[in-house]
C-alpha cells in the first residue's frame, strides 16, 4: 500500500486547480472577481499544509517521488511565488476581462508541475512535471490574446521549449542507456561502480543543455528576453522566479546526487557555463531600454550567480543556492509587481517612462529601488547576504578567480539597476503626470517584499539556519 498521505501538498494543489477551473465555468462573468481571492486563500492553506511535511524525509513508490526537506523547501518557495503572482495578477487579469478561471487554474497547474519537478526521484517523474509546467506556461505566456507580442512570445516559447525538451529527453535516455536505471540514487551507485563512459558523457552534455535552457543559462538563454517581454507581466515575474527555482532544484538533485561520482567532469562544463552566464547576462542587460527585457537579462545574470553554488559543490554551495533562490523570489516579484502596475497605468514598459516615479508613487519607487538594490546585492538587503554566501562558497573551494569575475559582474549589475533608480529618483515627472494608483492587493505584495528584503538582510539568521540544515540533510557527503 503506497503512502498517499505523503502527497498531501500535490493533491491539494491539484484539487485547487480543478476547483478554480470549474468555478471559472460555473460562476457568471459578472461575478467572478472573487476567483483570485479563492486562489490566494487556497495557496495560503497549501503553504500551511506544506509545513506539516517540514521534517519528513520519505520516498514514495520506491524512490520515484521524494518528500524530503529539500523538496519541501522548494515547494514552500513555489507557493510563496505563486501567492505573490496571484496578488499582482488580481487587477491585471480583471482588466483583461476574460479567462479568470482559466488563468488561475493554469497558474495552479504550472505550480503543480514544478512541485513534481522538485520532488522527482527519477527521470520520468521529473520529465512529467517539466512538461506539465511548460504546457501551462505556454498558455499563460500567450494569455494576452489580443496582443501580438504576447502571442509571438507564446509561439516562441512553445517551439523552443519543445526543442529543449527533446534535447533533454534524448540526454536522459542516454543516461538511462548507460546506467540502466532511471532512479537518481541508483544511477549514482552504478556510475560509482562502472566509472564514466562516453555514452554517459554525451547524455550528461545533452541533459545539461536542457537544464541550461530551463534556467536560462548562456548560451541557452536566447528565448528568455523575448518571452519575458511578451508575456503578461505577472507571469514574467512568476516564470523568472518559480520556473527557474524548480529547474535549479532538479538540476542540483540530478548533478549533485545522480552524477556526483563524475563531479570532476561536469564541473568543468558548468564552470564555463557560469562564467558565460555571468558575463553575458550582466553586460547585455546594460543597453536594455525596456524594463522587462532588462529584468530578463538580469535574471540570466542571477542564474549565473546561482550556478556558482553548483560549481562550489559543497553544503554551503547548496545552502547558498537555496537562500539565493528564496530571496530572489521576493526581490523579483516586488520588481515585477511595480512593473505590472506602471506598465498598466502608463501603457509602457520603457525605463525612461519611469521618470519621476518618486513623485507619482513614492511607495512603488521605494519598493523598486529596494528590490533592485537587493538584486544587485547591496547591504543591508537580503540579496547581499545570499550573494555573500555564494561568494564564500566558491572561495572556500579555492576558486578565487571565479569570485573575482562574479563580484565584478555584481558591480556591473549595480550600474544597470541604478539606471532605473536614476530615472525614478533623479528624473522629474512629465507635465501633468497624475499620481499612479496602486491596487490594494499589489500594495500588500509590495509591502511584504519590502519587509522581507530588509528584515532578512539585517537579520538573516532564521533562513540561514534553515537552508544549512536542509543542505546538511540533503548531502550525503
Amino acid at each position: 500500500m503506497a503512502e498517499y498521505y505523503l502527497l498531501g501538498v500535490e493533491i491539494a494543489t491539484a484539487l485547487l486547480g480543478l476547483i478554480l477551473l470549474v468555478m471559472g465555468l460555473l460562476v457568471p462573468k459578472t461575478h467572478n472577481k472573487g476567483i483570485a481571492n479563492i486562489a490566494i486563500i487556497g495557496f495560503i492553506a497549501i503553504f500551511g499544509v506544506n509545513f506539516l511535511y517540514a521534517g519528513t524525509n520519505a520516498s514514495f513508490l520506491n524512490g520515484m517521488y521524494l518528500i524530503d526537506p529539500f523538496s519541501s523547501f522548494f515547494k514552500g518557495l513555489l507557493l510563496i511565488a505563486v501567492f505573490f503572482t496571484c496578488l499582482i495578477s488580481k487587477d491585471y487579469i480583471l482588466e483583461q476581462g476574460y479567462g479568470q478561471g482559466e488563468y488561475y487554474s493554469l497558474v495552479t497547474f504550472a505550480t503543480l508541475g514544478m512541485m513534481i519537478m522538485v520532488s522527482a526521484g527519477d527521470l520520468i517523474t521529473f520529465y512529467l512535471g517539466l512538461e506539465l509546467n511548460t504546457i501551462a506556461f505556454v498558455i499563460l505566456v500567450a494569455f494576452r490574446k489580443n496582443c501580438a507580442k504576447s502571442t509571438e512570445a507564446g509561439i516562441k516559447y512553445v517551439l523552443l521549449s519543445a526543442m529543449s525538451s527533446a534535447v533533454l529527453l534524448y540526454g536522459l535516455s542516454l543516461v538511462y542507456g548507460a546506467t540502466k536505471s532511471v532512479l537518481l540514487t541508483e544511477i549514482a551507485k552504478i556510475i560509482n561502480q562502472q566509472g564514466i563512459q562516453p555514452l554517459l558523457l554525451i547524455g550528461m552534455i545533452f541533459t545539461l543543455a536542457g537544464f541550461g535552457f530551463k534556467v536560462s543559462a548562456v548560451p541557452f538563454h536566447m528565448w528568455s528576453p523575448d518571452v519575458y517581454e511578451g508575456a503578461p507581466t505577472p507571469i514574467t515575474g512568476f516564470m523568472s522566479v518559480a520556473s527557474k527555482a524548480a529547474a535549479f532544484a532538479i538540476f542540483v538533485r540530478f548533478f549533485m546526487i545522480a552524477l556526483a561520482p563524475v563531479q570532476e567532469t561536469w564541473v568543468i562544463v558548468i564552470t564555463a557555463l557560469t562564467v558565460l552566464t555571468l558575463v553575458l547576462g550582466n553586460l547585455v542587460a546594460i543597453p536594455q531600454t525596456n524594463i522587462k527585457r532588462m529584468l530578463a537579462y538580469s535574471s540570466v545574470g542571477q542564474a549565473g550567480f546561482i550556478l556558482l553554488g553548483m560549481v562550489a559543490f559543497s553544503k554551503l554551495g547548496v545552502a547558498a543556492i537555496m537562500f539565493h533562490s528564496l530571496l530572489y523570489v521576493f526581490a523579483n516579484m516586488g520588481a515585477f509587481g511595480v512593473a505590472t502596475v506602471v506598465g498598466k497605468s502608463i501603457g509602457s514598459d520603457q525605463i525612461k517612462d519611469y521618470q519621476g516615479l518618486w513623485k507619482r508613487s513614492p511607495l512603488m519607487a521605494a519598493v523598486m529601488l529596494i528590490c533592485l538594490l537587493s538584486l544587485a546585492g547591496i547591504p543591508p538587503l537580503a540579496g547581499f547576504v545570499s550573494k555573500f554566501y555564494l561568494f564564500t562558497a566558491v572561495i572556500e573551494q579555492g576558486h578565487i578567480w571565479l569570485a573575482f569575475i562574479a563580484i565584478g559582474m555584481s558591480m556591473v549589475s549595480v550600474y544597470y539597476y541604478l539606471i532605473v533608480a536614476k530615472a525614478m529618483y533623479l528624473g522629474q515627472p512629465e507635465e501633468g503626470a497624475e499620481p499612479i494608483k496602486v491596487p490594494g492587493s499589489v500594495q500588500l505584495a509590495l509591502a511584504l517584499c519590502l519587509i522581507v528584503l530588509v528584515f532578512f538582510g539585517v537579520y538573516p539568521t532564521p533562513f540561514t539556519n534553515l537552508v544549512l540544515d536542509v543542505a546538511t540533510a540533503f548531502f550525503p557527503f
Partner: protein
Amino acid sequence: MNFPVLSAIVLAPVIGVLAILLIPEKEELLIKITAAVATFISLALSIFIFLTYDRSVGGVQFVESIPWVDRFGINYTLGVDGMSLPLVLLTSIVIFTGVFASWDMHTRIKEFFIFLLALVAGVFGVFVTRDMFFFYLFFEVAVIPMYILIGVWGSTRKEYAAMKLTLYLLVGSAFALIGIIATFLYAGAPQHLGYLTFDIEKLATVHYDIAFQKFAFFLMLIGFGFLVPMWPLHTWSPDGHVAAPTAVSMLHAGVLMKLGGYGIIRLGIFFFPEGAKYWAPLIAVLCIVNVVYGAMVAMVQKDLKFVIGYSSVSHMGYVLLGIASLNSMGIDGAVAQMFAHGIMTALFFALVGNIYHKAHTREIARFGGLAHQMPRVATGFVIAGLASLGLPGLNNFVAEFLIFVGSFTIDKVVLGFIPFRALSILAILGIVITATYVLRVVQFVFFGPRKEEWDHLTDAKGIEMVPIVILISVLILFGLFPAPMTDLINIGVEPLIAKIQAAQAIGGVF
C-alpha cells in the same frame, strides 16, 4: 547590561529616518529639526564616550555583543578603542553641523534627510563595529545613498559624478569583499582557529602565512585605497566633492574618505603586519604623488570647490604617509590627521556652500574682495586655510607634525635609490604648495578691492553660523590642547605597533 551607547549612536539617525518618514513633506522645519535632534543625540553620546573612555585601561570599551548568524560566526559586536573613538566623534560633529549647513535647502527636503541620515548610520556603524561582516555591511550602506544624494541635489555634472563615484567605490569594495571572505575562510580553517568567526579581535590573533598576507593586504589596500583616495584611484573624489550638495560634501570629504584610511589600518595592518611591511614602500611612493600632485592640481583650479576637492586628495596623502611609516608616531599622526582634516574640510565645504548658495557661482575669477561683504565667512575661510597649511595652534599642525616626525625616523631606501626620508621631505614641501593654493584662493576671493557685483550678498548669520562656529572651535580646541586626542589615539595604536614590531622583517615590494 549597561546602556548600549554605541548602538544608540548608530540607531539615532535610523530612528530619525523613521520619524521623518512619518512627517508630511510640507513640514520642512519639522523635518529639519528632527534631523538635527537625531544627529544631536549621536553627537552628545559621542562626546560622552570621548570623555568617559577609560584611558588608564585602554583597549576596546563600551562593548556590546549579540550573536547574529552563529553558523557563520557573525556577531553584532560593537566597541570603540582609541583609534575609532576620534573618528566617531568626527562623524557626529560633521553630520550635526552638516544638518545646519543644509538649513537653506528647500527641494525634496524629506528624501534628502532620509538618505543623509541613512548614510550617516552606515558611517557610524563602520567605526564602531568590531565584526568584519558588519564592517563591510555598514561600509556598503554608506555608498548607495550617496548616489541619490549627489544625483538629485547636486550641481555641476551631478549625474556623471554620482555614477562615477558609486561605481568606483563599489569596485573598491569588491576587492575588499574578496579580501574579507578570504581572511574569514583562512582563519576559520582547522589548522588555524578551527571555527568560523568574523570577530576582528579573534581574527587578529591568527598568524597568516606570508604569501597570504601579501595577497590579502594588497586586496584591502586596493579596496580601501579607492576610498582614501590613493593615487591613481582618486579621480572620482574631486568630481564627487564638487557635484555633491554642501552637507554631503562635508560628510564625504570629512568622513567617508576616512573610512578608507580606517579600513586599511583596521583590516589591513592589524591582520597582516608582514603584508603591510611588504607593501609599505608602494604606499609611501603613491602617497607622495597624492600630496604633491593633489596640491599642484588644486593650485590651477577655477572652481572653488575643486580647490577643496583636490586639497583633500593632497591631505589624505599625509594620512597614507603616516600609515606607510608603520611606526607609532606615524600611525598616531595618520589617525590624528584623519580627524583634523575631517573637521577642516567640513569647514571649507560649509563656507563654500554658503557662498555658492548666495552667489550661485563658485568661479574664483568672478569673486574678489568678498571680505567686505562677508567678513565672517572670510574669517572662517582664513582659519580653515591656515589649518590646511598646518599653522601651529590649529589641530592639523599636531597631526602633520607627528606624521613628518614618524616618517622621517625611517631609515630605509625604497625603489633601490630613494631614501624614505627624501619622501618625507617631499611631503613637507607639499605644505609650501598648499600654502600657495590656499593663499591664492584667499587673495582672489576674499581680499582685494570691493566688487559692487556682490554687494547683495549677506554675511553668514543665525543658523548659518552654527557649523562655522562649532567647527572652528574644534579646530582651535584640539590645536591648543592636543593631548586628550593624541593620548587617546596612542592608546588605540599601541596594540597595532606591538603587532608590527613582532612581525618579522621581510623585504618590501621595491
